[in-house]
């Protein structure tokens, strides 16, 4: 309020409290014309894009979106963001079609051997893996002991062939092992744990392991039913190989002492497992995407 306006500016004519007046400065010309321009813009916009509601519908606008869908049909919709997305997706699908057609037509082995296709698998598979698989199996597929299997090693719960990996991706998996604390006593579980440790050359008590051996192959515990007489597992049941010193559920590598390692194994035997759930991806991903992922996972290192 340091400067008074010159008296030439007219007032609105209102007076409050006897002497309080309001100047009436006209808007700048550029502002007024810009305002008129926005009105004209709105009228043009209303005719091009969806705008006014009328009854149970609305004015669709003259702008149309046309695209060619996966069946090769040309589709036309009035402009909206969903149609825009379809046009965008179909455009990308056409660009990727030669690759996905090849993925569909070629066998897993052919894809893996073809230099161009394996490049495609590497890039497409990497982003698919990152979006969908990495939260559990981690970015490099290394998994997490106690939770999710390592996909880069040679140990497969359900089989590492292309067909088995594909089956796992499509239908998911659910791991199960009964809790043996219900049928065995603590001493027996300890004996079994020592035997399991001995299978992969871990520190163990020989006497206990020998007793564990009997239990393992006996009917009371019946471990052999799932893990096999040679304890090398049965992939059709998802029962892991116990002789390879690769640990998924019992966190043996993290246990510092020999006693800690045995305790980790004991824990799994006693409480069993009702986890190891892998979701099914058949509803979320397309068949081609699953095939890409199958080859990608197979090529992570451990494919059989």
């Amino acid at each position: 309020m340091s400067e008074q306006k010159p008296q030439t500016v007219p007032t609105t004519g209102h007076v409050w409290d006897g002497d309080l007046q309001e100047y009436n400065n006209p808007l700048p010309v550029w502002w007024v014309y810009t305002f008129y321009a926005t009105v004209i813009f709105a009228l043009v916009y209303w005719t091009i894009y969806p705008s006014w509601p009328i009854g149970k519908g609305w004015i669709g606008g003259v702008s149309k979106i046309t695209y060619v869908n996966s069946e090769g049909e040309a589709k036309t919709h009035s402009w909206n963001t969903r149609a825009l997305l379809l046009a965008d997706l179909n455009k990308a699908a056409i660009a990727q079609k030669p690759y996905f057609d090849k993925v569909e037509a070629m066998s897993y082995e052919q894809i893996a051997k073809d230099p161009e296709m394996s490049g495609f698998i590497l890039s497409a598979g990497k982003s698919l893996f990152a979006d969908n698989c990495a939260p559990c199996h981690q970015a490099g597929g290394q998994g997490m002991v106690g939770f999710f299997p390592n996909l880069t090693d040679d140990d497969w719960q359900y089989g590492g062939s292309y067909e088995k990996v594909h089956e796992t991706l499509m239908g998911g998996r659910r791991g199960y092992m009964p809790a043996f604390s219900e049928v065995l006593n603590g001493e027996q579980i300890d004996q079994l744990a020592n035997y399991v440790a001995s299978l992969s050359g871990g520190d163990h008590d020989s006497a206990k392991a020998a007793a564990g051996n009997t239990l393992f192959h006996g009917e009371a515990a019946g471990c052999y039913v799932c893990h096999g007489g040679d304890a090398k597992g049965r992939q059709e049941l998802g029962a892991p190989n116990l002789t390879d010193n690769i640990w998924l559920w019992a966190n043996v590598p993290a246990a510092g002492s020999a006693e800690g390692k045995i305790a980790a194994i004991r824990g799994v035997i006693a409480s069993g497992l009702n986890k190891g759930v892998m979701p099914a991806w058949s509803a979320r991903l397309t068949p081609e995407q699953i095939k890409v992922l199958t080859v990608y996972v197979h090529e992570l290192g451990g494919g059989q």
Partner: protein
Amino acid sequence: MNINFKHEWIETNIGLMAVLTMIAISVGGLVEIAPLFFIDKTIEKVEGVRPYTPLEQRGRDIYMREGCYTCHSQMIRPFRDEKLRYGHYSLAAESQYDHPFQWGSKRTGPDLARVGSKYSNEWHVQHLVAPRSMVPESVMPNYPWLLSTQLDISDTAARMKALRKVGVPYSLSQAEYDANVTKFGETVAKQLHIPAAQKNLVEQANFGNYDGDRSGISEMDALVAYLQMLGTMVDFSKYADDAFVETR
């Protein structure tokens, strides 16, 4: 009748000015919002969308209590990158029973509109207790108390009654229940019946065992049940690519 309108009337009468200001502002909102109630296609006609079961609803309450919405949206926009990462764009129909909706306006974490059945229950439990043990680069806080706090189920029915007041078709009477059977089928209608709310909640929690611990019903059970349902109600394989295009 000759009324000589004078602007001064408004400027010298604060009550009149308040009323007229309110009317002027309402016009802006009304022309944008009101037509949506009359346009047929505002809520897409789609099969499968139902109100939440008592357990899912309690999980949703916990989702809001913990402020998950401040970092996670539940609204997949119709963009190619979102479609590739999260799945089909969200439909209005999918949040028709949400009070309030959880669309959100900011993503520090990923969108959760279709997180249901993407990961195992076990992943969710471990991830909520210690996010960085699953996703090393995560900035999500730990929520360990969800696992150790038992869910208060005593007010389940009262919460559903409140939602019924704002239009969610939870049933109190036999007639309402029968209407739900017609609309959603018997299995769902049973879950929406308020007199059976607590029994239904306990059954679902025990059957689903979402937190992997059968000794009780924790808040984790409810939250994971809710998360595992998100975005799974509509089977998009039943609809053509452009089935929902003409509704916008």
